[in-house]
């Protein structure tokens, strides 16, 4: 029996197809301006991959920015907040996980789940983009480095630079000045990763993170950021052994299975 989760965020769109509780297909794409297009694409992609018609999916849950539009369009039976979905998804992957830091395109969230993966408490950045994927995206562009490369690059840093500011706009100018003054990209990338981790850690502290800490969302792929977050919180990050970008969609799919009457 098939279940699906669709997560359409501000930067990327993902879908996961489950057979029972087993992942049988997944898709990731850059988000289009219109979330419905993104949703149709990723949903179609996973169904094609499995060779089934969208109609054969028993229950679908949408999440992320586009969740309500997608639901209204009938592409999903119901929609849930990405906060619940990321929390539940991470918990399904590693049931001992209690604190999840999800860094999306414009929102960063710190989520605490209970022993059953239910939402206990959470915090969300209400003011500043400094701790989000958005920040990294812009720094990557300024540094002319592929987003995926940023983390590895930062790891080769010898003398990491220190960003004096927290504000995205400022840091961006600082990055330019460091470049113009001839600092190497690796050292600057490390500085950027630390600046981001600093904000992320500040957010995480609001939910009083526990030892079983995991990171989801695209930024979680950045090894340098992971390391800095661990250092600043003094907590090791649990490895979910799963594409962190897909955790939201996975959580939505597992909730679809749970709520859509998976025997």
């Amino acid at each position, binding site marked *: 029996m098939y279940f699906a989760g669709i997560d359409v965020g501000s930067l990327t769109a993902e879908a996961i197809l489950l057979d029972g509780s087993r992942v049988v297909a997944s898709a990731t794409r850059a988000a289009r301006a219109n979330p419905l297009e993104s949703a149709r694409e990723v949903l179609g992609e996973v169904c094609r991959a499995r060779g089934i018609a969208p109609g054969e999916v028993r229950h679908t849950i949408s999440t992320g920015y586009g969740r309500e539009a997608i639901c209204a369009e009938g592409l999903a039976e119901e929609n*849930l*907040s990405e906060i*619940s979905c990321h929390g539940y998804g991470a918990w399904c992957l590693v049931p001992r996980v209690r604190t999840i830091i999800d860094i999306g395109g414009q929102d960063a969230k710190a989520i605490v789940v209970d022993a059953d993966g239910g939402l206990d408490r959470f915090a969300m950045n209400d*003011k500043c983009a400094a701790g989000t994927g958005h920040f990294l995206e812009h720094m990557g562009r300024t540094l002319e480095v592929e987003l995926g490369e940023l983390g590895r690059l930062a790891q080769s840093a010898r003398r990491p630079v220190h960003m004096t500011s927290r504000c995205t706009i400022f840091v961006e100018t600082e990055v330019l000045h460091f470049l113009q003054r001839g600092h190497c990209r690796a050292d600057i990338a490390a500085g950027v990763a630390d600046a981001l981790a600093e904000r992320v850690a500040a957010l995480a502290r609001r939910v009083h993170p526990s030892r079983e800490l995991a990171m989801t969302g695209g930024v979680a792929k950045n090894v340098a950021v992971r390391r800095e977050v661990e250092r600043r919180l003094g907590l090791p990050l649990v490895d979910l052994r799963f594409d962190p970008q897909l955790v939201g969609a996975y959580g939505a799919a597992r909730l679809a299975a749970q709520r859509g009457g998976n025997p």
Partner: protein
Amino acid sequence: MDYINDINQTFENKHVRAFREAGGKVVGFTCVFTPVELLDAAGVMPYRIKALGHPETDLADGRLSRFNCRFCRSCLQLGLDGTYDFLDGILESNGCDQLRGMYENWEYASAPGFFHYLKAPHQLHPDALDHYALELARLRTALEQHFGVTITDDRLRDSMVRHRRIRAKLVALDRLREQERPAMTGSEALQVVLAGGAVPASVYEELLDRLAADLAHRHVDRPRVRLLLGGAATDEPALFEAIEDVGATVVADTFCFGARSYGPLLCETKGAGDLLRTLAEIYLGGSRCPRMFDEFDGRLAFVTEAVAEARADGVILVNNKFCDLHGFDNVLLRMRLEEQGVPVLALEKEYGSPADHGRMRTRVQAFLERIGGGR
């Protein structure tokens, strides 16, 4: 409900126009601790200044800064762009530092006819109550001199009785809100209070009677989640709608554009014959605003009692960005309420920004999912 909502469609509504065409004078004020009885007794209509989430602030931003709360900036905007030109005067009050700033810029940029600064103490010490009574005496004189009237004790007493009646009627409406199937939504309740600040007391009393009759047998759907909303100055029906739209009903609130403006003001007083001293006790003793710096316990009790009365499943404490008073109080309230097992969502938002409502939905929806409404 329409006869209520219509009033809030415009700032200068038909009742205000009628009152002014009959030669009546209208004076604007903001804070709950303003003794509207004195204005009524002077034959002056008190009009509660509001911004209804007005999104534009470009005129105000030429004076106030982006570090000032946007409620104040929106109010100043309406003061500067002529929306409030129908006011014959303004009653400044020291509700908070930023309101003071708002009024000072308003006065500086375009001094209106009658301008008086009513200064309320931030504590209940007997000396403070005496000082507020003195301030009320000054207001009385200022009104009498500017509008050439005499505020007799009899007229003042009558108007105190009337406003006590009005407040009792509003409390009665709250009971209807708290039913298994509430008689009205939270956004409707907000409309009722907003209307109260925009019409003459006599008109309002009739409206409330009519409303009580209409609501007697009216029911909205049984809420999936019963919420109490509280926090910073909130006169945005759109905010209530955004929250209730996610799948909850606001069955109670503790806003100053809400329950704070009537229930607690029915408190008992020792006034001992002196009307102004009595008013001082009512308005300071009955204040549930975090501007009172030694009365947190009273504010906590106000919320916990409301939660119990309305059998709320959870509490959302709203803060307008840059509001210090609620910024601190919301955190303390959250801690204490959670100790009592009441789920709380602290929601910092930008006033008058529908964009923010979108972002808020995520947090509200997650909160509802957490307390079982969404799942």
